[in-house]
């Protein structure tokens, strides 16, 4: 089965730390970045294990603040 590979980017200063995205990820790689605080004073969401991302865009779909952009390639 062709394996989808994805990549997500976070506009961190738009994030309000609501954590909705962390529960939507089917491979559970979206976490809150505890080492960092954004301009609003929240821990922004992030992904450390980007290689596991399948580009399904669930995180971006549930994000209320359009923080997340998603890219995807389908490896043959």
């Amino acid at each position, binding site marked *: 089965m062709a394996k989808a590979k994805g990549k997500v980017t976070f506009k961190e200063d738009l994030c309000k730390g609501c*954590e909705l995205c962390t529960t939507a990820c089917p491979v559970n790689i979206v976490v809150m970045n505890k080492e960092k605080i954004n301009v609003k004073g929240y821990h922004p969401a992030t992904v450390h294990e980007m290689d596991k991302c399948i580009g399904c865009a669930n995180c971006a779909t*549930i994000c209320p603040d359009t923080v*997340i952009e*998603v*890219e995807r*390639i389908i490896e043959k």
Partner: protein
Amino acid sequence: MAKVFERTNGLTDKAFHYCPGCTHGIIHRLVGEVLEELDVLGEAVGVAPVGCSVFAYDYFNCDMHEAAHGRAPAVATGVKRVNPENVVFTYQGDGDLASIGAAEIVHAAARGENITTIFVNNAIYGMTGGQMAPTTLIGQKATTSPYGRDEKLTGKPIKVSEMLSTLDGAKFVERVSVHNAANIRKTKKAIKKAFELQLSGEGFGIVEILSTCPTNWGLTPLESLKWLEENMLPYYPLGNLRTPKEVE
């Protein structure tokens, strides 16, 4: 890598003022995406309510009106009757639509006004700080039902979609929710269909969207999604209540 998800041009670049985890932001995005995908941003005229989404006129990337509390369907009627080729929509909360604006929404639907209403039901008054709304559930605490909504005092919550689906003028009535990604996608489909029906001149369409209010529910954003699922879904069943036959 092909970009599969980015901020829609249906929204301006103004950041939302909504509370963390408030699903208004999701619904705004869905409406913006649909208007962009249907390529009608240049024809769209939206009418914002009074409530948390009163600033919607700063967020949607199209001509907008800010209406008095509850009067958006009447304002939209005026706009649509003047320029029928415009794609006219109202974006309203439950206090705005089901309480003070009940007559306006009923008659816009009864007239079969060819507009689209995005109805955000979060079972509470948000902007004013958490008062009981007509959609507040029995037993649910709010700042004006501090002991929990009491049916004997205030009656039972209004099921707007069921109510409006009795009106033949309402060609499209669907209740959806945004408490998880799958349902958010269904919500987008319903919004798109409602706007498509307006474009084909079918008449009045309303999408009731169950939504959260973490701040005034006194829950975290994630707990709010769960609360919506466990408490609102049983009372407000999801599904289509009315759609034009041939579109089935």
